[in-house]
């Protein structure tokens, strides 16, 4: 601690400013909403409700709810202060591998808030929502063209929901053939959602080991195929950052066994405008609009996960369907007519329209040329990181990488520093860490995805910091890493304690003490 900060902390030592805040400079300690309560206070001025004879059928709520009362300025300050404890893409590079944390353009936000989109009810008469239907169709057209696939189901709410949608369509197609297959093959490097989705869809998961080159071992895959295999769920580029170069052979083998080829499109950012998975023999793939097409992650969501489908699966797509009808569109909301074979509905209403507007704004801003440049720059940035760090970090596989690059913890061997320690030290250097300990097929994985938005100067600084940290680890400064982060709003948090005796909500102190 410097003399200056010591002086400051001496000056302000734990001063309680009266409202419970203990802030120093922009280092903020923020109480919970519930600890700022004054009964009767509100940040919204609603009039006294008129006296009416209630028609609640005797079902009126009794007793207080326990919600805290705050004024508007208090609420604004609360959330503004909380926001300042967060790192976002707007703060700096956010190199989470397989998460594609790219810039979220504010134009997208502005467009999504146009009353003609945001203030529409999903069950208005279709004649009053023609523009919204046209918007869905325009985005659908782009997604089909970019992937080289003939059909797309727009309603899935996120990537994992898209996976589920795709696997349900596959399941339905097999049923239509009178087949009840039981196994789904999932590479060990797959996202956790893949096996979880297969299980939710009623399948047993059979892992396929990765070959030495970080790609699916085709021989191992062939050996696993059989008449009870429903599908393979593959990711390409995979989570090692490598393109699965034998996708066509995989497709041929899978199709030869009567199974389907599901592609996890989480890493489509490498392929946009350059490779159409439809040309490589896939049957279904979801796209994460919140990754590839820039809709914000929002601290966890919402996302949107449209699924492109081969002709063989299209008739099983979930409701609702949007079909061309003369100059306009027809919304099919029930299993009838051309939608008779649908798997049915998988969520309420029509899909994540707010995300569609944002994604389409992103796509229109780029155009076909810009999307191609964006995927190229994403791949260039990843390979630049690989080339610039491979002498100090240990790359798991030689390049070329696609949009992300995988390192493992061999470079930390005998340093006493773990991948976790290394990640926490990156926080002190002003960076959000990369994805760590994933994929599971290498030890202590560090998966770096810079995206296309980073400048060379920004990458050079990131690279310099990574080099310097690697050198400090190797120079025996393990203690520094073990205690990192030092400069974040919180030091390392005790996750074991959190899980051992979970406290998932605030309770009044007296109430909490009694439990």
């Amino acid at each position, binding site marked *: 601690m410097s003399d200056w900060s010591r002086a400051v902390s001496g000056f302000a030592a734990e001063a309680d400013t009266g409202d419970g805040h203990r802030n120093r400079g922009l280092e903020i300690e923020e109480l919970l*909403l519930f600890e700022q309560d004054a009964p*009767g206070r509100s940040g*919204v001025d609603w009039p006294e409700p*008129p006296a009416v004879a209630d*028609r609640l059928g*005797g079902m009126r709520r009794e007793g207080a*709810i326990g*919600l*805290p009362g705050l004024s508007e300025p208090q*609420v*604004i300050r609360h959330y503004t202060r909380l*926001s*300042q404890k*967060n790192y976002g893409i707007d703060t700096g590079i956010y190199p989470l591998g397989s998460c594609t*944390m790219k810039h*979220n353009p504010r134009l997208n936000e502005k*467009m999504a808030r146009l009353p003609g989109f945001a203030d529409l009810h999903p069950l208005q008469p279709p004649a009053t929502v023609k*523009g919204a239907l*046209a918007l869905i169709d325009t985005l659908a057209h782009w997604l089909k*063209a970019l992937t080289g696939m003939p059909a797309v189901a727009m309603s899935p709410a996120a990537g*994992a929901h898209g996976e589920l949608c795709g696997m*349900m369509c596959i399941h339905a197609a097999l049923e239509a053939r009178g087949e009840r297959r039981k196994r789904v093959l999932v590479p060990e490097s797959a996202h*956790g959602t893949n096996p*979880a989705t*297969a299980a939710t*869809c*009623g399948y047993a998961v059979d892992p396929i080991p990765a070959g030495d080159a970080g790609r699916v071992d085709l021989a191992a895959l062939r050996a696993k195929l059989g008449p009870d295999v429903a599908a393979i769920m593959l990711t390409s580029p995979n989570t090692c950052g490598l*393109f699965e170069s034998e996708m066509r052979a995989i497709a041929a083998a899978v199709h030869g066994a009567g199974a389907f080829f599901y592609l996890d499109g989480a890493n489509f950012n490498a392929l946009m*405008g350059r490779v159409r998975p439809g040309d490589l023999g896939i049957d279904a793939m979801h796209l994460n609009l919140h990754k590839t097409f*820039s809709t*914000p*992650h929002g601290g*966890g*969501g919402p996302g949107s996960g449209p699924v492109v489908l081969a002709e063989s699966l299209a008739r099983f797509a979930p409701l609702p369907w949007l079909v061309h009808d003369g100059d306009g569109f027809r919304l099919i909301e029930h299993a009838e007519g051309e939608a008779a074979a649908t798997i*049915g509905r998988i*969520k*309420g*209403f029509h899909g*994540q329209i*707010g995300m569609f507007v944002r994604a*389409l704004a992103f796509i229109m801003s780029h155009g*076909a040329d810009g999307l191609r*440049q*964006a995927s190229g*720059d994403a791949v*260039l940035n990843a390979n*630049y990181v690989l080339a*610039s760090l491979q002498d100090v970090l240990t790359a798991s596989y030689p390049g070329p990488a696609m949009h992300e690059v995988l390192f493992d913890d061999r470079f930390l061997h005998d340093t006493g520093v773990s991948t976790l320690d290394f990640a926490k030290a990156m926080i002190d250097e002003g960076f*959000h860490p990369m994805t760590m300990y994933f994929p599971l097929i290498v030890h202590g994985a560090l998966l770096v995805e810079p995206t296309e*938005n980073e400048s*060379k100067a920004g990458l050079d600084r990131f690279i310099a910091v990574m080099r310097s940290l690697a050198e400090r680890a190797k120079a025996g400064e393990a203690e520094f890493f073990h205690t990192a982060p030092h400069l*974040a709003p*919180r*030091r390392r*948090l*005790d*996750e074991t304690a*959190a899980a051992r005796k*979970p406290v998932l*909500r605030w309770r009044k102190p007296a109430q909490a003490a009694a439990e």
Partner: protein
Amino acid sequence: MRYLSLTDDDRRVMLATIGAARIDDLYRDVPTDALLDRPLDLPCGMGELAVERALATLAARNVAAGSVPFFLGAGTYRHHVPAAVDYIVQRGEFLTSYTPYQPEIAQGTLQALFEYQTQLALITGMDVANASLYDGATATAEAAMMANRLTRRKKVILGGGLHPHYAETVATYAHFNGFTVVARPPDPAASDDPAVLIDGETSCVIVQNPGIFGQVRDFGALAASCHKAGALMVVVVAEAVSLGLVKPPGAMAADIVAGEGQSLGNAIGFGGPHLGLFATRDHHMRQMPGRLVGETHDAEGRRGYVLTLSAREQHIRREKATSNICTNSGLCALGFAAHLALLGESGFTRLAALNHAAAVALAERLEGVPGVRIVNDSFFNEFTLRLPRQAAAVVDALAAKGVLAGVPASRFWPDRPELADLLLVAATETNTEAEMDNFAAALREQLR
């Protein structure tokens, strides 16, 4: 392209560092004939102004709810969202952050979600809530699967007041996940008692309050029937604002609450993104789906928050996870939390009372229209009208006159002629008396 930061010079230097001549060389693992050598035959990029014009043109082809007298509900409700809420959700640190995997630099999101979980537990009367699911329909499907895990049974009973999209979603999940659904027919009279179907195979009964037709019911006796048979009761709440006035599921001994949280802090948005609500009892928390935020402390003993009980989740447990969900509706949950923080106890209960008063005022006007009858004995902010003719035709005719009158039951159940004359009508604090008068007059005119 304005979002790209590399210059051509940068690209040259970087390619030289890599040892590649051009970006295409980095794609050498892709089969040559699958590598596109030119942009697809699609439009080229546009500046901000041009994109705005194009999208505004599409938006202008829609009739925005706020531009006409508007009375639709049926699972998504138009409420006034304070300006402060949108400021908060547009804070870049919230908007552009990921799922809080690095808690030391995500305390903002984590604390806000911990508060959200607490607010949701309070208003539903339950012990604990998760950090959100996709929407009401998928939350209901997750509730069914959680009940199946807890009871080790595979039969789910759906009440006749459950939102048909939720019922259909549960049925889809059931078909593939491998459980049985017994759905009661739509029940506009709210007279059906699903308890008669409960047997030793039943994992749960799922009912909605207020129901899709608007009725408010007490499911306390149903809970007792469920528990006696070793089954659980799931209560669905599709209109979160109702919890400010109506007896909550927790007070009816519900085991799981699933629901739709769009009403607070979020736009109707043509139906998405919305906010899946999920709450349960303490002793069931380890079977919950989705993210959970828990309180802990840091290395200096200061209070802090982390994602917890991750051993339930797909990224740890893979095929043995409680759900496949990863991305949820975090930012929608933030909007919900901020809106509820602004309202507070007095604002929330008052907002709910205003909604009920608006619906009562609308009901009184519409009951006066010859030939129109209200089906409901009880309601919160939505009720069902029986019209003297097919409701869909009336809705279309009124839309042509600039009144968005409600949702005809036939939109959900086109194959049930006995429901064809039913119209679901909602009123909220956003509806003025003039709009209600306008609606009643237009309906009177239309039915003349």
